[in-house]
């Protein structure tokens, strides 16, 4: 199974890698238990930075599309097909839309929402640090 990345495309490279792997799973080109190339191999084959592919793999693992089994390598998750059809970005957008609509209905202004959002995000980042 071959993946093609558009270096000049507007979509970030890590997002293209995620999209292509999910597409391969949804088209049954690769299935549960199939091994994936190592981060280094895929990055070198695509002429990318290792960190870009690592980011894509971390996000795919978070979404339970792939699983890393230590030194044995990275494999397609048993529930990968179901999980590949879940679009977390879409879900985030829906949730934000719902919340922002509710806040606006309650009379909160856009600038108040932005400041609150920034505070929440900064608080989370500070806590993580």
């Amino acid at each position, binding site marked *: *199974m*071959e*993946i*093609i*990345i*558009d*270096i*000049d495309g507007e979509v970030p490279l890590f997002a293209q890698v995620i999209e292509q*792997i999910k597409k*391969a799973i949804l088209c049954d*080109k*690769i299935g549960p238990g199939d*091994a*994936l*190339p*190592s981060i*280094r*191999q*895929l990055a*070198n*084959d*695509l*002429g*990318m930075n290792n960190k870009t592919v690592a980011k894509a793999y971390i996000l795919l693992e978070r979404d339970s599309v792939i699983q890393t089994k230590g030194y044995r*390598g990275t494999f397609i998750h048993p529930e990968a097909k179901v999980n590949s059809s879940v679009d977390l970005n879409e879900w985030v957008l829906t949730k934000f839309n719902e919340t922002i609509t509710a806040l606006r209905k309650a009379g909160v202004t856009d600038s108040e929402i932005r400041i609150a959002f920034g505070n929440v995000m900064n608080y989370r980042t500070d806590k993580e640090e």
Partner: protein
Amino acid sequence: MSAILLLFYAVFLSQIFLISIYFPMKIRSRILYVIKNYPPKEYPKLYPKPYDFYAEKAAKSGLSTYRNINLFIAAIGLGILVWALASGYSPHPLGGDEIFVMLYLLLQVAPILYAEIRTFKLYWGMREANVGGSRKAELNPRNLFDFISPAFVALAVLLYAGFIVFYLYDKGFTAPWEWEVYVTIAGITGMNLLFAGMIAKHLVGKKLNPHQAHKDRLRQIETIVKIGIFASIAASVFLILTSLVDKYELEVFDPVLTSLYFQIITFFGLGLEFRTVKVETVDFSVYKEDKPVIPT
């Protein structure tokens, strides 16, 4: 003429033919085949630098020089043989003459190394010219044992360990040893590490040729893996044999053994590359101009 002397002349003659005539001829005919059948107009990606009339003339004249230099080196070798015959030379019974075989070999491999460097520079130019566009990769992991049987890898490791044990048994297991022992062990270990690094680089490293088709890349990796493992096996066997030759005071065979070792390495190294990656079966369509993407 003694049998040892006859054997030495036959092996040295074979070295001259194999490394200065046969393989350079194959390399040259391969390059000429590519220039003739895959012109820059149809295969622009194969020529990262402008390839006009003068560049073509320069390339062809370079190939002629390459052939002439190899023939000149072969003539030097034949001259050495004639001189040896005329002067009644015979290998020194206490060894040491293998150094001359190695020095001549260095001279012989210089044009081959030059050709390799030029190929590397061509790939480098292709990589520099390959900015933007699309990049392709296979979603299959590449493992060492996809390209070679584990038995050969095990044999290489066993022979390496076997040589170290045998060598130390011969020199005595108690340290400190003479500096020669440290140099030999460090040399064979370094060489094996070099082979391992070369194999790892080809397995998971960056593609040298950015346009190479996937099936051609797999064939190339297979060749490199086999050459690396085979060279490791051959080096261990060669060192065990030379140790045995020294132990049983048969150093007179050292030049023959050295020449045979390098010929076998060249035959199975370059030879394997020519057999596995035949130029007629290489996918050159990857060097054609990219077709414009028509939006749907």
